C-alpha cells in the first residue's frame, strides 16, 4: 500500500533518517513557519517591495491580501532576461523611491526571490543610494524556498536582517527589560506570562508585533534577556546572544500540564527567580473538561501553533488516543523527547510526512479519526471535527494554552466549522 511509504510508526522513529522521505513535494499544507515577508512586516512602520518573477510574487501577494497587509506590500514583476542580465537595478531603485515618496516608511524592506539567491544579486549599491538620499533604514531579505531546511534558511535570512538592524543599537543593558521572541499575533499584556514577568520585576516587556514604532523596536536591543516561545525565534535569539551578549531561554508554547510545569521550571532557572504560577495551574485545571477527549481517536497536524508531537503527548495525557501526527520536516531537536514519550505511552501512533505525494491517495485510512487538530490534519481526516489551533487565531502561553485548547474543542464540537471553510473562508492555510 502506498500509504506505508508516507508514514512510520512512532516506535520506529529513532533518528532523522527514519522520517519518511518524500521523493517529490505534494500538498505540504504548511511550511512550518510564517511567511518571510509577513514576518518581516511585523516591524513597525515598515513597507516591503518584493521584486521577481510573476510566479514568486503571486504567492506573497495572495498572502498579503488574505492576511490584510497588502497596503504595506508592493511588487515589481521582473522579466527573466532582466534578472539574468542584471538590468533590473535601476528599475528596483526607481520603484523604491516611488514607494518612499508615497508611503514615507520608517523601514523599507526589499525582498528578493530564489532567482536573486542563485545569481547572488547584490543590491548593496541600490540600498546604499536609497539610505544616502532618504536617510531611512533599508533591509534586504530574500524569500527563497530553495533554502528551506538549509543553513541559512529563508527565516534565518529574514531574522538576520532584523539582527542587522538591532546589533548596533545596544547602548546599555536594561535589567528590567525582556523580549519575548517568536510571537506572530502578540501575547496579551493582561495574560499569564506578562503577569509573571511583571511580578519577577520586568517593567518593560517587548514583542516585535507590539512595537508601536521604530524607537520601540530599538529598545529591544537593550533587553537583559530573550524569552523564545516559538522555535523560529531561536534564530534571532542565538544571533543576539552571540552578537550582542543577550542570553536567551527557549520555552516553546506547550499544551500538556506536565510540559508547562517543565517550561516554567526552566524559566525560573534562567531567571534565577521563583515564579508564582501555581494559581494559574490550579485555575486552569478547574477549567479543563477532559472528558470531552476521553478515548477519542485524534490526529495532529503541523499547522498548529506549537509542536504537533508535544500536542500529541498532551492529548494522550488528557485521555485521547493519538493515531496520527502529520509533520513536514524531520523533527526539531527539542521534539525528540516528545517522540520518545509517545513511543512509550502511545505506541500505535503513526507519523506521516505531510508533503508526501502518496498521502492523498488513500484518505480513507483516516476515516476513523474523530478530532483533527491543525487545518492540515483536517484536510486528510475528512470525517473528523477540525480544530485549527492556528497561530493566526490566537497567541497564548503557559496554562492559557490548554485552556484555549479546551475552549476551541467545546466551541467547535458544538458549532462545527468545516475544514473547507477554515481554509477557504478563514484563510488559515496559506
Amino acid at each position, binding site marked *: 500500500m502506498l500509504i506505508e511509504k508516507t508514514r512510520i510508526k512512532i516506535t520506529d522513529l529513532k533518528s532523522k533518517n527514519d522520517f519518511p522521505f518524500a521523493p*517529490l513535494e505534494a500538498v505540504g499544507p504548511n511550511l512550518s513557519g510564517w511567511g518571510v515577508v509577513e514576518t518581516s512586516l511585523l516591524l513597525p512602520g515598515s513597507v516591503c517591495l518584493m521584486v521577481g*518573477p510573476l510566479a*514568486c510574487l503571486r504567492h506573497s501577494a495572495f498572502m498579503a*491580501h488574505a492576511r490584510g497587509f*497588502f497596503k504595506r506590500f508592493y511588487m515589481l514583476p521582473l522579466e*527573466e532576461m532582466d534578472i539574468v542580465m542584471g538590468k533590473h537595478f535601476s528599475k528596483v531603485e526607481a520603484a523604491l523611491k516611488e514607494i518612499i515618496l508615497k508611503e514615507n516608511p520608517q523601514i523599507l524592506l526589499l525582498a528578493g526571490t*530564489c532567482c536573486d539567491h542563485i545569481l547572488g544579486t547584490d543590491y548593496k549599491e541600490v540600498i546604499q543610494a536609497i539610505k544616502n538620499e532618504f536617510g531611512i533604514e533599508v533591509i534586504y531579505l530574500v524569500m527563497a524556498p530553495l533554502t*528551506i531546511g538549509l543553513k541559512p534558511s529563508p527565516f534565518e535570512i529574514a531574522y538576520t536582517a532584523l539582527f542587522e538592524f538591532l546589533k548596533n543599537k545596544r547602548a546599555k543593558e536594561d535589567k528590567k527589560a525582556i523580549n519575548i521572541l517568536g510571537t506572530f499575533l502578540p501575547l496579551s499584556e493582561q495574560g499569564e506570562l506578562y503577569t509573571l514577568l511583571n511580578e519577577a520585576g520586568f517593567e518593560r516587556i517587548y514583542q516585535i508585533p507590539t512595537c508601536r514604532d521604530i524607537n520601540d523596536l530599538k529598545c529591544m536591543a537593550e533587553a537583559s534577556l530573550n524569552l523564545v516561545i516559538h522555535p523560529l525565534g531561536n534564530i534571532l535569539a542565538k544571533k543576539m546572544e552571540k552578537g550582542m551578549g543577550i542570553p536567551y531561554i527557549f520555552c516553546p508554547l506547550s499544551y500538556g500540564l506536565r510540559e508547562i510545569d517543565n517550561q516554567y521550571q526552566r524559566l525560573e532557572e534562567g531567571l534565577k527567580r521563583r515564579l508564582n504560577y501555581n494559581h494559574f495551574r490550579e485555575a486552569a485545571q478547574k477549567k479543563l473538561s477532559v472528558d470531552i477527549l476521553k478515548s477519542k481517536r485524534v490526529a495532529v497536524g503541523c499547522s498548529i501553533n506549537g509542536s504537533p508531537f508535544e500536542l500529541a503527548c498532551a492529548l494522550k495525557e488528557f485521555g485521547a488516543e493519538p493515531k496520527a501526527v502529520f509533520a513536514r520536516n524531520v523533527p526539531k531537536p527539542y521534539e525528540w523527547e516528545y517522540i520518545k514519550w509517545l513511543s512509550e505511552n502511545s505506541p500505535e501512533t503513526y507519523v506521516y510526512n505531510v508533503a508526501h505525494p502518496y498521502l*492523498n491517495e488513500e484518505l480513507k485510512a483516516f476515516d476513523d479519526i474523530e478530532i483533527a487538530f491543525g487545518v492540515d490534519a483536517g484536510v486528510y481526516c475528512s470525517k473528523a471535527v477540525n480544530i485549527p489551533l492556528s497561530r493566526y487565531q490566537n497567541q497564548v502561553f503557559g496554562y492559557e494554552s490548554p485552556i484555549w485548547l479546551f475552549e476551541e474543542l467545546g466551541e467547535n464540537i458544538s458549532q462545527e466549522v468545516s475544514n473547507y471553510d477554515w481554509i477557504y473562508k478563514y484563510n488559515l492555510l496559506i
Partner: protein
Amino acid sequence: MDLLHNLLPLPSGYFGASSVLYDLGGLIVVYGPAGGAWHINIEDEPRWYRGKTTIVGAGLLEMDVILGKDPEFVERIVSVARDLNRNFVALCGTPVSAIIGVDLKGLTQAIQKRLNTPVLCIKTSGTESYLEGAEKAALALAKTFLEPTVKIPRSVNILGAIHLDMGHPQHLEPLLSLLNENNWKVISIWGGYSSLEQIKHSASASLNIVVGLSGVSLARYMYEKFDIPYIVGIPVGRKVQKTYLSLLEGIPPTLPQTPNSQKALVIGEPIVSYSLKYFLEAELGIKTIVISVLPYKDLLLSPKGLKGSFIIPSKEDIYTCSEPRIADLMNKSDVDYIIADPLYERLLYQKKKFIPLPHIAMSARFYWDMDYEYIGPRGEEYFKKQLGIT
C-alpha cells in the same frame, strides 16, 4: 513594468498549464523549489481540495541546483509516476529552472525513456503570463493525444475553458444547456470538466467553440490538422443566445443597436469581456469599453477556419495589466458602470457603479464561491439585477 499594489500579479505559465491539465488524470511536475506546486494548489486550484495527487513540486534545494542533480530527479519522477500510474506526466519549468538553464526537453526525454505513459514538456519559466502556459499545455495535449477521425455532425469542442478564466464549472452550464437543447453534441471541454478519454475524441467534432483566449492557438492547430472550423465567443443574455446559435451555423452576428447615453467599462479576459460587451451593447444599449488584461491582437485577425466571432473591437478598447493605467482609466473615463473582478474596486475613487465579475486569474480563490453568473439567461439576470434594470 509598473508597480503592483492593490492587485495580484497574474498567474504565471505553469499555473496556466496546470489549469488546462488538472482534470485529466495526469501527474504535473513543477520543476522548481518546494512551494511551487503548493502555491497553485492552495491559492489558484480549488480542484486540489481532497483530490488525488495531481500537481507536485520537484522540491529543488540549493545544492541540487548548484550540483545539477537532474538524473536523481528523473529517477524520483519516474518512481512516483510508476507508483501513481497516471495517464501522463507533464513537466513544467519555473523561474529557477529557467535561470539555471535546465534542459526541460532533455529531462522529458529521459523520463519518457523510462515510462510507457506519455510525458509532456511544457516549457514555462514563471515570468510569462498564464496564457502562454495554458496555450503550450493545450497544444502539447493535442499533439500527443489527438488522431484524425470521422467527423460527427453538429458536434462541438469547447476550447479555452480554463478555470482561471471561466471560474467554477457551474458557470458554463447555461452554454452546455443551450447546445444540448439545440441538438449540438459536446464532445469535449478543454481546460477542465472533461476526462482524457473525452479529450481524445476531440478530432471528431465538426466545430470548435473558443470561450477563452487560451483556446485560440489550439483552435487554429485543430483547423490546420483536422479541418475543424471555429467560432469565438460566449452567449450572454437570452436574445444573444439566438445570435449565438446562428453563429454556430456560420451566420456572423449583426452589429449591436445604437447605444443609449450610458457607458460601461469591462476589465478582464478578452473573450469573456467582448462577449459581455456584445450583450451590453446589443441588448441593453450600453456603450462598452474593454480593458483586456491579456494581449488579444490575435483575436482581431481573420484567419482561415474562423467562422464567426463576438469580438467587435472599438478604438477605445486596450490591452493593459498595468495597475496605474487601469486605475486611471477607471477613474478618468466617463463611464457609469465598471464590471470587473472585485479586487479592482480598490482602485476606484470616483463615484461609479461597480459590478463584480470575479476573474480567478486576478483574485485567485478569494471569490471562487461567490454568487455570480455571466453566461446565458443566468448572466442576463445577474447583470440586469446589478444594473438595476427590471
